[in-house]
């Protein structure tokens, strides 16, 4: 990016009505990927100069234990629903979860899910890191996930969505394929980086379950309806040029007993429709690049 410039120079402007034709495998019009955030939030993290980790003095009992629900109860509830309806996960992973609760990571691996890094912990923020420090968390992420799962991570969603001006350039330098940090489009797009190349895959923050429940205050049923509306529109528009729908999730939210039933119905609807290419993030970006040469 152009540090200090009013336009950070992340990408070129591509009008939505002038995109090259793109059909997903099997003639599908919308690529649908599900991004469960498998996270570890520290109960007593060190202070960061720019952002507080918890709203109360530590231990922030509700904040910590709400998120801990994922790793004791709701990960498996969410994962079973996804597996039942044929949706693999592309995991936004706090890589320290590999140390704390390897059982959760192993469950995801055995389901054939893809992993990308969401930082070391969701309570360690990248703002104001030096280049050396940011390289350290990138290298830690690559090493930790490889040791735990055998996978070389190809994607990045910055920890708690905290960045530095050099984040995207570093990802390209370390041969990452995609970033989930930019929310400017409903299609895969090229990101401008200093050297090499990097794609932006839509992560659809606006239909993230956290946004659904705590920004837009939806009920479980309203959120499921929003996902179906999102899907219907993107599937229709994908007739012109293949679109991407992401469903970003947190088990401690979507896996609550009052929300999981309607969510399962939304997945059933999307899988039964026939227009969805249900895929993992890396496959979607690879196919886009092979078909469009990055000119999508």
């Amino acid at each position, binding site marked *: 990016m152009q540090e200090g410039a009013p336009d950070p120079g992340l990408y070129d402007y591509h009008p939505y009505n002038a995109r090259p034709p793109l059909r997903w495998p099997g003639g599908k019009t919308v690529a649908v990927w599900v991004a469960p955030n498998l996270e570890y939030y520290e*109960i007593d993290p060190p202070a960061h100069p720019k952002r507080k980790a918890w709203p109360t003095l530590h231990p922030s009992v509700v904040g*910590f234990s709400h998120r801990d629900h994922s790793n004791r109860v709701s990960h*498996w509830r969410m994962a079973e629903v996804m597996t039942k309806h044929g949706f693999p996960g592309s995991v936004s992973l706090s890589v320290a979860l590999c140390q704390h609760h*390897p059982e959760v990571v192993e469950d995801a691996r055995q389901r054939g899910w893809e992993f990308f890094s969401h930082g070391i912990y969701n309570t360690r923020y990248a703002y*104001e890191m030096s280049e050396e420090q940011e390289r350290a968390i990138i290298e830690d992420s690559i090493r930790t996930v490889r040791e735990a799962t055998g996978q070389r991570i190809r994607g990045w969603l910055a920890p708690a969505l905290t960045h530095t001006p050099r984040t995207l350039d570093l990802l390209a330098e370390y041969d990452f394929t995609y970033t989930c940090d930019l929310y400017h489009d409903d299609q895969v797009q090229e990101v401008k980086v200093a050297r090499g190349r990097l794609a932006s895959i839509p992560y659809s923050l606006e239909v993230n379950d956290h946004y659904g429940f705590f920004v837009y205050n939806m009920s479980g*049923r309203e959120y499921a309806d929003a996902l179906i509306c999102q899907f219907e529109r993107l599937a229709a528009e994908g007739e012109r040029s293949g679109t991407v729908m992401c469903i970003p999730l947190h088990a401690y939210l979507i896996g609550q*007993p*009052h929300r999981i039933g309607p969510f399962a119905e939304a997945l059933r609807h999307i899988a039964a429709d026939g227009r969805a290419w249900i895929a993992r993030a890396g496959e979607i970006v690879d196919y886009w690049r092979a078909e469009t040469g990055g000119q999508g």
Partner: protein
Amino acid sequence: MALDSAYLEYPRRGRGYDHDLYEWSALHERPPVRWPGGLSVAVWLCVSLEWFPIVPGGPFAAPGHMQTAYPDFRHYTARDYGNRVGAWRFLDAFAAAGVKASFATNAAIAERYPELVAAVIAGGHELVAHSTDMNGTIDSSLIREAEGALIGEAMARIEAASGVRPTGWLSIARQQSWHTADLLKEHGLTFCCDWVNDELPYRFGNGLINLPLNHELSDRQIIATQQKSAESWAESMRDAFHWLAGEGKAQGGAGRMLPIHLTPYIMGLPYRIGALEGLLADLAARPEAWFATGAEIVAAWQAQEQARG
């Protein structure tokens, strides 16, 4: 520009938690819990009885506390409405449905409104300790001795005013300090309801039991915070029950728990109480439902823990 080097050090990065309060365990891998009568979903109604001093105090402001400049008649009286009217509607609704509940009660409620607490006890409901009053919040700014004195005072005042010494504790806003679990144990409490990380009881390292009172299912969260209607709240409770009953059935009748946290000044309003009454009637008619107090759920769980050894 760089962060302090300690920010990239992770001294607790290892197997299990980065604290020593309780151990990790996945619910689906534990031996199944069985509730009495082979019923699969324990429905735990927990009502908070709260008295907010018009002069705020304590380590932090409790949810629902005074908001305007002094004197905040608006919030003082709107909260007290729950104790004068709303809670009585709850008692009638529970009696009509034939169900028992827990009442997480400030000591000040037991002292100030003895008629209400007597009716709670006479109805067969449970008293759970809920600090002194809504200024009796706990966080890590309290020194251990002050927190211990607060817990001891709350227990003594509730017992003196009601004749009952509760075995369970709910912290205001579920907020604890690093010492709370040990202090509750020292004061003879069997369980707390503060940690929302599970859907069944589990034990802390010090022996205290946590009975998770899901905050996401509370009327405060869904109606006051997320601004949903009472009917939307009730629909979410029905969806939750339906899902939990299905999970229990899929695992051969394994026990699940649906905690329903109620606030008299929220759900006890005239235009909302009907949604609660309708929900209770529906759930009471479900063949899987075991309506139980917190202490009854804890006792059933403890008996099986002991039987397993």
